[in-house]
């Protein structure tokens, strides 16, 4: 530690830290623009000049290392003169258009100019003009003339997002921030550049000119879009959400949020919002009032319970629902007498149900990801599924950790990958067995699973050696591994690998409340009885379904199966914030409030319970789902539903102090049969980043980004050749009873024999399961005219 003096205050600061760090510690503010605590030092704005005793000239605080006995003056005559001079230079080319600038009122330049600048400018010459650039649908660069070249956005791309999409071209007074030949900025974290920009050069395209910053009320909330639970500030004007920005929480999202968290609010204001309860009568939707709608639902449920038994009623909920909603849903179901409730909509292997002592979770805290020195990530579209968890791992890798990857698609992770094995989905188990065997040999122990017959490949041995050399090893299962038909086997092997490498095994949760839903008991095996899981309740169709936030054609592992069950049911009740395809098959649509309009709790993947209040009042007649479920239970005359606040629901369902004890990834000793290889082409399905939940699907700007572009069928060049296809050709994709025609693209990121085709989107919603076989046949190929005719025929039949 070093002792230095800043403005007469003695501070102790770490060796190697800067004067700026010490000033922060001492609570002294030094004006700055290019300095940011999470970014590298560039010292190019010169705003933080301070006087250091015995130094002949002012020094930049952000780039001056603190030294023992240093005496710093931030407000001395020399410092003030230097700061005023820099401010004058910065303002020379900066347009004084604050009254029409979107940043006005929350602008660092404006604030610092007020505090440290002169009252007037001596500059009368012409100002520099920079032409606007097109960098995509999210960030506007229309007023690039305002840029003061701090390069925060450039450094953010290089250091945090992992990809340098913006750069500073040209030099001296001609230097400009731009992307390469006007290409779009596609990083899933790009919106943070808007926050980082200390002036109004990078502004939010969707938010521009909709409000002044002082007209907005700021309400804290929690992101419902991924399992991290980023802390948000929801900015509201006239009961309408106009933008979302991060709230700093070093343990969770640091000071970042993903673009999905930031721009999805547009979905909340979508024209598709359901604002009145609706009942279908004689195939026509009529709007009714709440009592009538709930009466209708209650009658329907009672009738089915009487005539066919409560077991004929099933409930599905998305893990984006709050703890309170999920708790009341399962409580209602169990009070009726049915255990058929599940939130694991995209999973397909339920063989571990009831075997774990608690909810699957990350296995460690989010913050401790940064201190892992070895990673093995199994089956994850990491960057798209968990943008900020990927960011933390990227930082760990940068500071020396090594990253191993086992997956079915070699997506760009924007970090150094030590070893990777990309195989078809049915080979994942084998790869993990190989790693386990190699690890057992490496550690000179007997493998806990019978892997004698496994032949270890080179990559598996490399991964095993890599893991064996680590001190803090993290083995993680991504969404793909959790949705896999042999998910439990993968998890079991992962746990064994973790034990041998003295590491921890964890899950990157699929949804904002995956852990919360489990703890709320929204699973069929909670308690003594066990009901039907998400797949079973579709395979043996039920007479009635309650859908909480679910759009079955988009949210389910097998949408084909789900739709068949919905269409054959006697009664489908949709609790939804949006009008969706449910209008085709549902009988009742109940408008519920999305996360900004209700209070609730999300429990993130590390088991952190974060409660939030509604940021605004519900739209139209929409009501918080916990209230709807409570009143429904009251109408049904069920006991134990006398709640008057979401907090009382939470307190009944959740003991905050005991969450840690209820998290468990451990699987007991299990026996597995031999893997049967899949014959034919195998589907590799991701859920695109902007298709994961109902709100984000309706966020207009996000839907215009490259990540939401129309889907392609992707296969390797080998398979392309085998099928006689050219990139861009149309192919007929068949799964189960449906087929769809899409354009094909070549990808060398896949294993041979696999077909990558996204799920969770309208274009593929008629297809079957996310895993398993999928058939490709050529269309419009001049070589096979006969085949092409057949396809044309089948198209006519379909329509």
């Amino acid at each position: 530690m070093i002792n230095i003096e800043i403005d007469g205050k003695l501070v102790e600061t770490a060796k190697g830290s800067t004067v700026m760090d010490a000033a922060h510690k001492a609570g002294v503010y030094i004006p700055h623009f290019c300095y940011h605590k999470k970014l590298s030092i560039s010292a190019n704005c010169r705003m933080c000049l301070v006087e250091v005793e015995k130094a002949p000239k002012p020094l930049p605080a952000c780039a001056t290392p603190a030294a023992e006995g240093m005496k710093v003056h931030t407000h001395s005559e020399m410092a003030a003169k230097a700061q005023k001079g820099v401010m004058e230079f910065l303002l020379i080319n900066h347009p004084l258009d604050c009254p029409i600038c979107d940043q006005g009122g929350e602008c660092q330049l404006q604030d610092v100019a007020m505090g440290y600048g002169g009252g007037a400018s001596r500059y009368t010459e012409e100002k520099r003009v920079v032409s606007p650039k097109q960098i995509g649908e999210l960030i506007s660069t229309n007023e690039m003339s305002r840029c003061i070249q701090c390069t925060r956005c450039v450094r953010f791309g290089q250091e945090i997002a992992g990809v340098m999409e913006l750069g500073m071209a040209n030099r001296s007074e001609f230097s400009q921030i731009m992307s390469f030949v006007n290409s779009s900025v596609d990083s899933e974290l790009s919106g943070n550049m808007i926050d980082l920009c200390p002036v109004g050069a990078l502004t939010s395209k969707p938010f521009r000119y909709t409000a002044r910053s002082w007209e907005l009320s700021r309400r804290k909330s929690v992101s419902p879009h991924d399992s991290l639970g980023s802390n948000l500030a929801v900015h509201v004007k006239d009961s309408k959400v106009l933008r979302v920005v991060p709230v700093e929480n070093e343990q969770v999202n640091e000071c970042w949020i993903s673009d999905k968290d930031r721009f999805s609010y547009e979905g909340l204001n979508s024209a598709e919002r359901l604002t009145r309860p609706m009942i279908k009568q004689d195939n026509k939707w009529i709007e009714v009032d709440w009592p009538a709608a709930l009466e209708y639902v209650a009658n329907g449920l009672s009738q089915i319970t009487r005539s066919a038994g409560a077991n004929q009623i099933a409930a599905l909920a998305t893990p984006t629902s709050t703890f309170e909603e999920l708790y009341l849903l399962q409580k209602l179901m169990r009070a009726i007498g049915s255990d058929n409730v599940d939130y694991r909509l995209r999973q397909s292997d339920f063989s571990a149900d009831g075997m774990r002592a608690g909810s699957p979770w990350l296995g460690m805290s989010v913050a401790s990801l940064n201190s892992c020195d070895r990673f093995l990530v199994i089956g994850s579209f990491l960057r798209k599924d968990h943008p900020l968890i990927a960011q933390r791992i990227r930082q760990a890798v940068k500071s020396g950790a090594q990253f191993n990857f086992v997956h079915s698609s070699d997506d760009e992770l924007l970090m150094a990958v030590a070893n990777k094995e990309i195989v078809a989905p049915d080979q994942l188990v084998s790869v993990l067995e190989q790693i386990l065997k190699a690890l057992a040999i490496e550690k000179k122990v007997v493998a806990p699973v019978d892997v004698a017959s496994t032949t270890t490949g080179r990559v598996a041995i490399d991964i095993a050696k890599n893991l064996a050399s680590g001190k803090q090893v993290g083995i993680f299962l991504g969404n793909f591994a959790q949705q896999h038909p042999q998910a439990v086997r993968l998890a079991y092997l992962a746990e064994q690998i973790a034990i041998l490498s003295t590491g921890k095994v964890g899950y990157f949760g699929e949804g904002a409340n995956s852990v919360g839903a489990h703890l709320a008991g929204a699973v069929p095996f909670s308690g003594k009885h066990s009901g039907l899981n998400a797949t079973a309740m579709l395979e043996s169709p039920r007479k009635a379904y309650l859908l909480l936030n679910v759009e079955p054609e988009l949210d389910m592992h097998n949408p084909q199966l789900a739709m068949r069950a919905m269409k054959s049911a006697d009664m489908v009740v949709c609790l939804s914030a949006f009008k969706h395809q449910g209008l085709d098959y549902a009988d009742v649509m109940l408008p519920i409030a999305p996360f900004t309009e209700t209070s609730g709790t999300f429990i993130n993947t590390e088991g952190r319970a974060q409660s939030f209040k509604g940021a605004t009042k519900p739209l139209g007649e929409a009501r918080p789902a916990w209230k709807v479920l409570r009143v429904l239970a009251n109408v049904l005359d069920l006991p134990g539903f006398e709640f008057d606040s979401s907090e009382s629901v939470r307190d009944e369902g959740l003991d905050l102090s005991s969450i840690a004890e209820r998290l468990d990834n451990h699987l007991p000793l299990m026996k597995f049969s031999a893997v049967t290889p899949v014959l034919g082409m195998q589907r590799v399905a991701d859920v695109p980043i902007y298709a994961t939940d109902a709100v984000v699907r309706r966020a207009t700007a996000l839907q215009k980004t490259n990540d939401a572009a129309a889907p392609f069928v992707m296969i390797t060049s080998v398979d392309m050749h085998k099928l006689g296809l050219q990139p861009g050709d149309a192919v007929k994709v068949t799964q189960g009873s449906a087929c769809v025609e899409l354009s094909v693209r070549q990808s060398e990121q896949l294993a041979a024999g696999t077909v990558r085709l996204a799920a969770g989107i309208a274009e593929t919603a008629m297809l079957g399961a996310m895993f398993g076989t999928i058939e490709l046949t050529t269309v419009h190929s001049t070589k096979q005219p006969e085949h092409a005719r057949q396809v044309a025929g089948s198209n006519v039949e379909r329509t």
Partner: protein
Amino acid sequence: MLSVHIQDQINRELKKYPVDQKQSAVMSALRFVQDEKGWISTEDMSDVASFLGMPQMAVYEVATFYHMYNLKPMGKTTLTVCTNLSCTLCGVEDTVAYLKTKLGIGFGEVTPDGKYGMREGECMGACKDAPVLTINNKKLCGRLTHDKIDQILAELDKS
């Protein structure tokens, strides 16, 4: 695509740097491209970027920062005339005027036959020979008089 020749040159250059510091060769790589093609297009920059495994924007930054990279077609021979202080004091204005009448082009322009291009340059560190120009950034010619310019152009015409 970068020609085999350029790729060979870059590969030879890469031997000078650590294996994980391939981007150190970016300036040489851009120079090789310009030597062969006369200028550097954005396609070339993106080819260099993928060859060296660095972001396209980072190559663009380098290419636009340095004055001696031609970012548009500049003719078979590019004459760069220094217009800094020493050359100005020694009468570069007259040199430039003479070149303009001889070639019929100004700074940043190319003759219609594509043979000559002319650029304005910064100090070339040879002030004792002012006024100076360079031919394709490689050959320095000093003490420019009308006769000397005629002589230089005559030689270039021959080659």
